[in-house]
């Protein structure tokens, strides 16, 4: 039973990490690309870290909460770094895709 839960968590983590990077690879401009890694990849890494916490809590005697620390840190820092990157991109006026421009700007 535990094996199945761990496998599902790990596969889910790998899948969401892949989806995040696929978004980074595929989407047309920077402001769209920002969505992939900052949301999907963080969720994927969080799932892998929780799987690791469950695995080490059950394979050894003591509860292992170190991984939760990394998860918490990532969940706090991902929005901050995304905000800063978006601000920097707006500051240096990164090119936008045509479909996301206002009518008046075109």
């Amino acid at each position: 039973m535990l094996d199945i839960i761990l496998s599902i968590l790990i596969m889910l983590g790998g899948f969401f990490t892949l989806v995040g990077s696929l978004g980074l690879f595929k989407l047309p401009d920077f402001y769209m690309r920002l969505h992939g890694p900052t949301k999907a990849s963080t969720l994927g890494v969080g799932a892998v870290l929780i799987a690791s916490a469950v695995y080490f809590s059950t394979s050894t005697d003591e509860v292992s909460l170190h991984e939760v620390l990394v998860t918490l840190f990532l969940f706090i820092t991902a929005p901050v770094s995304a905000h800063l990157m978006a601000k920097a991109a707006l500051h240096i006026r990164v090119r936008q895709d045509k479909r996301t421009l206002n009518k008046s700007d075109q």
Partner: protein
Amino acid sequence: MLEYAIIIAFVMVCAALLLSLYRLLAGPDIPDRILALDTLYINSIALLILLGIHLDSMLYYEAALLIALMGFMGTLALSKYLLRGDIME
């Protein structure tokens, strides 16, 4: 069962690393490269944690924590440099 899941996840995370490496090398603008670097370190954390489960060792967790801390600092510094032209004012 767990072994197979870990191997499949390894393949997925390595593919994710390759995709973000492409964006790091090809990205048309500088913020794209910063974002790709951010994604690279987040993916490498996932890879390290998976390796820790695979080898049944707690050692790799500390490396993952260090990478998380230093990677965030790097992203912060690069974005701040683009925003202000200076990191420490």
